């Protein structure tokens, strides 16, 4: 065991740091610092910069355009990206549908879809949840009925993050209603521009609509868009869920936010003549979160290390999801409390993509109240933290 970076890894870290310093556009950095959302065009632009560098897909195999990095290098890259505030690739293409295509797609499908994902030419979204199928995902009802060379798709999907931007959606659809619910599901790719596809934004508690409902009304989908075998979709989706768990623990993001929290606390009055950082209760709780982050970071590093010697990622990813999201939420709570009355203004438009004005609240605190509200999603999405605990009970504890 050895905690020190090798000279090669240290050099790699410097290279990544320098690249981000020079290539992540200052305008985007300012926006991220101010909590303003990047637009679709800006996110795509940044992805293309990464692609030019050859760093768009750290976790892909080399033959598909991945980097071939070691787990330590991947960790360094994710950490430096997070500390800079540079957005991760939109996960739906890069991290979700691409591994399924690589594992179960035909050569033709891989040729057709992967290069556009790598180059960020196409925006994907995920079609799993339905209005009546949340944690019990396998109960989904959106149907795909074979009709010659096509499937006819009818139904509704929900919670589609950035569905308003998407060109394509990967869906779990029901292709057999006569068998056990998990055994009648298929994995189907659908062009969002097909006739019969429509979407409706869902306004969330923070005033934004980053998620949508998507409706399918007699949508004709070419049968060649089916991944793998009919009725095997549940298996593929499950593999995907344990396969791609990079950065599920949000360690880089939480590291960045904790540093920002410490800085903000040092500059804010405690109302008693000192700074909030000098407030013993606040400072003690802040240290508690910093300690939790160290435990989480090493839990993640140990998981990555076990992957690198060929073990498959197991329920460890459930631990990382639970602890990572709950820590992120506790950091949000500290920001909320730190802001006091500054956390209360409800001005979502200040954080919209195009916002050019001056935000109402002091730097570092602007919008933290809204972040607190928005991040309640973290323990709900991606398999709620209760579902993750069920996975631990079943897969590890044998309960």
């Amino acid at each position, binding site marked *: *065991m*050895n*905690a*020190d*970076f*090798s000279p090669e*890894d240290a050099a790699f870290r410097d290279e990544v740091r320098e690249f981000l310093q020079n290539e992540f556009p200052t305008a985007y950095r300012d926006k991220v610092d101010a909590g303003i959302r990047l637009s679709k065009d800006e996110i795509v632009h940044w992805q293309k910069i990464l692609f030019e560098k050859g760093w768009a897909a750290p976790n892909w195999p080399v033959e598909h355009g991945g980097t071939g990095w070691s787990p*330590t290098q991947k960790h360094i890259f994710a950490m430096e990206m997070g500390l800079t505030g540079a957005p991760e690739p939109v996960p739906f293409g890069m991290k979700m549908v691409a591994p399924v295509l690589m594992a179960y797609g035909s050569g033709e499908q891989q040729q057709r879809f992967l290069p556009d994902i790598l180059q960020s030419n196409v925006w994907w979204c995920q079609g799993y949840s339905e209005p009546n199928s949340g944690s019990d995902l396998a109960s989904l009802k959106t149907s795909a009925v074979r009709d010659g060379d096509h499937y006819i798709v009818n139904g509704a999907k929900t919670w589609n993050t950035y569905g308003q931007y998407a060109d394509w959606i990967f869906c779990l659809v029901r292709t057999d209603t006569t068998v056990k619910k998990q055994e009648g599901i298929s994995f189907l790719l659908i062009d969002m521009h097909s006739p019969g596809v429509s979407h409706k934004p869902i306004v969330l508690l923070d005033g934004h609509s980053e998620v949508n409902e998507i409706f399918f009304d007699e949508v004709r989908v070419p049968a060649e868009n089916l991944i793998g075998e009919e009725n095997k979709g549940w298996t593929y989706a499950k593999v995907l869920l344990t396969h791609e768990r990079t950065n599920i623990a949000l360690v880089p993001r939480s590291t960045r936010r904790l540093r920002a929290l410490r800085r903000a606390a040092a500059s804010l009055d405690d109302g008693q003549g000192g700074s909030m950082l000098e407030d013993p209760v606040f*400072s*003690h709780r*802040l*240290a*508690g979160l*910093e*300690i*939790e982050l*160290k*435990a*989480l*970071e*090493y*839990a993640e*590093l*140990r998981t990555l*290390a*076990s992957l690198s*010697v060929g073990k498959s990622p197991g329920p*460890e990813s459930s*631990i990382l999801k*639970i*602890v990572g999201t709950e820590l992120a939420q506790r950091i949000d709570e500290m920001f909320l409390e730190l802001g006091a009355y500054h956390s209360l203004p409800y001005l979502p438009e200040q954080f919209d993509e195009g916002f050019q004005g001056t935000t109402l609240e002091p730097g570092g605190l602007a919008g933290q109240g809204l972040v607190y509200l928005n991040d309640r999603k973290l323990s709900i999405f991606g398999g709620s933290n*209760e579902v993750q*605990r*069920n996975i*631990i*009970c079943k897969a*590890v*504890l*044998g*309960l």
Partner: protein
Amino acid sequence: MDFSYSEEQQMLKESVGKFVRQQYDFDTRNRIAASETGYSEENWKLFAELGWLTVPFAGEDGGFGDSAVDLMVMMEEFGKAMLLEPFLPSVVLAGRLLAALGDARQKEELLPALMVGNLQLACAWAESGSRYNLAHVRLSARGEGGNVVLSGAKVNVLHGPNADKLLVTARESGAVTGSDGLSVFLVDRDAPGVDVRAYANMDASRAARISFNEVTVPESARLGKPGGAYEALERVFDHATAAVCAQAVGALDTLLRKTVEYSKTRKQFGVPIGSFQALQHRMADMFIECQLARSITVMAAMQLDSDAPWQSRSAAVSAAKSRLGRAIRKVGQEAVQIHGGIGMTDELDVSHLFRQVTGLELLFGDADYHTARFTRLQNAG
């Protein structure tokens, strides 16, 4: 970065693991706990023969290498079986303090004897009122005709009743909480004026309150420069604290395993209680606590073995002990709760494990103490 065990560490783990599994079951431990000294002299000889007593010492002192990761590997296995032999107080604490502060003659005289199992040491550091602050020392050392006279009292001297010699922290100068002016003296446990009141701690290990009533020792009993012991004390205690974390990780794993097993066999309302989701999720949380406890303990050990500045190594240790304190509360209390009434009984090992980890929770500082120390070290950096 590398998270794999070396071949030697793997062998050490297997060797210690095999011993505790085959020769240290719960009944055996109970017999040892009930014996007069509270540990097995026979086991101690075996540890010496196997070379285990050399692990926390540097090669130049005749040791195995003094790696915190090696020590972690051993302590975790010891923790699984609630080992009672005085490896921590005699070797990891007092032995390493002697190695850190002693001159060539002192080390030559004592360390080889310690490593072959012929000498037992204990460290007397804590006082009533010092809580976890190593610098808070009232016990005084004053020069008198070429000798030193020690006056004061120590609490929680682990292994104090059975040790041959005591390493005693004493104040030669400075304020009660000052880090300057502290020295460590070697004192025979049987020396005139040393009054040992022996007892057992809640984890069944033996400890003592010891009064030093005008105890006279020669100048040569001082380890290191007069008044200059604090830095070495802090570093030795950091290592010992990381070792305690590893011991707790082992014990917590056993608590989790036993709780899950019990929940699968104990039936109520016609079904195993482990089928109730209200209990399942709590056991999932226990598992998470165990994993985080292990991860942060690994971090502390790796940092101790690294080239990082001492301040950040100490911060890593405090982070670990703070986190362990919380994990111990959670896993220990939940293990008893999920077992129900039977978890309260002296008959079942669960209650002994709970007592063991509660002792480890407080030893060298609880979660609040180490969170505050972590903050102090962070802010100083």
